[in-house]
């Protein structure tokens, strides 16, 4: 069921069109990737969702209802341009953000301490913000957004500047949210994260929705008919393959003829008695799709 639905959103800044009728849904309990090059209109769309700016036209529905300010307590937001009150302590800032989402003071304090532990920073609770390193500050910001356990949360580039260990930590938190039925919109330029985490994506370019759907479907849609095979001996010539390109170490990239499916190739290889250890249809990486869409859009 859709927890968020954008309906024909149009927004302009002066003569610049930021969004030209964008429509898509985000389902409950999924991690949804919001993709697009810089200036595509992602931030504008997120700000419209958060009622920070108003669209020129179009509708936003959340949890099955037209979005109102009352819904904000159920939403979380980590903006791209973000920061914290530098002169205050970590726990005070987290409590304030929690209280703004409707938590009582004691509950906000309890959750702040709990979340600091979860992001492996329990010792910084009483530190002033300006004492934190960039990575620490980033984790505190993420914890401050997640401590109210928002039903729908938008995270704009949450892992920028984090080391691989902390990137994994944040990814685990998002996966856990999905397990708990919470919805996360992940706006990022890191396509490996999209492949690893996202269930579905929407790619916006120049204010238009260019790609929308399940990650696997999108990758398949944009993939060339190609499979990767690891074989112990040279491969026999089989009908559904138009070309076999050696890739070193017994790996072969097999180009499929028009209309052929990977299953046809696998069947033909087995019938021909090929000694294969590994067979994998090659899906286009999200990064390639991103490049292609942006380049085609610009053309």
């Amino acid at each position, binding site marked *: 069921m859709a927890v968020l639905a954008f309906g024909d959103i149009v927004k302009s800044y002066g003569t610049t069109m930021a969004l030209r009728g964008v429509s898509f849904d985000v389902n409950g309990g999924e991690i949804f990737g919001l993709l697009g090059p810089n200036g595509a209109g992602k931030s504008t769309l997120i700000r419209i969702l958060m009622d920070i700016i108003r669209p020129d036209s179009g509708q936003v529905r959340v949890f099955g209802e037209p979005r109102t300010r009352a819904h904000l307590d159920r939403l979380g937001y980590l903006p791209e341009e973000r920061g914290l*009150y530098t002169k205050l302590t970590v726990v005070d800032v987290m409590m*304030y953000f929690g209280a703004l989402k409707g938590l009582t003071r004691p509950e906000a304090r309890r959750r702040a301490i709990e979340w600091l532990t979860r992001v492996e920073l329990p010792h910084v609770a009483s530190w002033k913000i300006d004492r934190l390193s960039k990575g620490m500050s980033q984790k505190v910001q993420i914890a401050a957004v997640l401590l109210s356990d928002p039903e729908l949360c938008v995270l704009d580039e949450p892992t920028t500047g984090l080391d691989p260990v902390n990137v994994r930590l944040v990814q685990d938190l998002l996966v856990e949210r999905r397990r708990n039925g919470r919805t996360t919109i992940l706006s990022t330029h890191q396509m490996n994260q999209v492949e690893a985490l996202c269930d579905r994506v929407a790619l916006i370019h120049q204010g238009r929705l260019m790609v929308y759907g399940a990650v696997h479907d999108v990758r398949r849609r944009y993939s060339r008919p190609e499979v990767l095979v690891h074989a112990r001996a040279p491969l026999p010539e089989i009908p559904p393959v138009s070309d076999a390109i050696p890739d070193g170490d017994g790996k072969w990239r097999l180009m499929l003829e028009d209309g052929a499916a990977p299953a046809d190739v696998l069947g033909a290889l087995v019938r021909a008695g090929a000694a294969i250890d590994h067979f994998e249809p090659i899906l286009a990486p999200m990064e390639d799709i991103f490049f292609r869409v942006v380049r085609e859009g610009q053309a």
Partner: protein
Amino acid sequence: MNRSRKVWTIATFEFLTAVKRPGYLITTFGMPVFMALYAGVVALPAYFATRAAREASVYGVVDDARVLDLRGDTPSERPQIPEEVKRMVDRVGQARALEEELTNAEFIFRPFASEAEARTALANRTLKGYFVLPRDYVEKGVVDVYTQDQINLAGDSARGAFADLLREGLVKGRLADQLSDRVVHPLKDERSFSVTRTGELVDSSVTAEVVRVAVPLVFMVLFLLSVLMTSGYLMQGTATEKENKVVEVLLASADPEQILSGKLLGLGGAGLLQVAVWMLLVVGGGFGIVPLLMTSNIEMPWLALALAIPLFLIAFLFFGSLMLGTGSLGSNMREAQQLAMVWSLMAALPMMMMAALLREPHGIVSRVMTFLPVSAAPLIIFRASTDRAALAWWEVAVSFAILMISTWIAIRIGARLFRVGLLASSRPKLREILRQARLSSS
């Protein structure tokens, strides 16, 4: 979470953040200490000057007209203090201090047989000056006055005291004692009354007049001080959010009106607390204003005092929201303060027009200003204080209504400007402000 709770959350956060700042604590408690030290430094020379002044100045008198019949050093009369002032001083237990203060005469008049002797004494600086009454003084009234060849600011007082001495000498033995006393002190004391438009008698003593003017004046000063002090905190609060990049997080949790109201209450509260602490320190600092007023039986302008608190708060919200809204359009603290300056000047308008208002407290200017949102609050207090009967109840009601509606509109406008200003990295153009303001209302 309901709207008022969110406003309260923001207000509490802003208030506690502001009052915990070292700068705030230093200003709040350090300023009175600094002012006391400053006053001490300024008062020190004045204290020594007063002590020197307590030693009476000696003036010579050469009485060729034989009017005074001085038989040695003659002190001048002690200064006359109005009876009502004496009574008030007595009620607050300071009569003895006043008595001690007035024990010593200010001048001593010393007789000399000849002008030459007096001149020698003056040249030797044993005299401040001397007066010569020529033989034809009674006929012509001309007195020769000789002084040191340097500036003497007490010269006029000495002449006045000598004139009193002369009056006494001229009538002594020539008129009955009582009549003689009236000639010397024709206005020994006074009882003042004022008649209202309804023919009622009210107290019109000097003290009552002072209180009537002081109430609106104190209101205006405090109000202006609060607006100016608080504007700094309001500007700083907005600039901090822009600098720390927490604006979007806030706007994703509360609407601009809630943020603006919360900031106004929290930071405004911090500013008002500061002014209140200063007031308490002044009142509690031994100046004895309250006991003096409590015991003086002066008819207090109770209506003005009762209206002061609600009017103060509404007017504060009016100016605060506009200052916060316009100030948020600035791209930095300096620009924000420049933009908000116009509202500080508006708040100071009644103060700047005080002289004109005092001449005609219920004239056309006062009446018009009563209905202007920028001046309504101080004008109601002013008019209710100076002449309650001349202020119609409907004028108070209409003025209150105008101020409340204006404040509501100001908060709405302030919130829209605030939303536009918070998200803008540089000062937005007027067309963009209007466009965004229009969109945010839809």
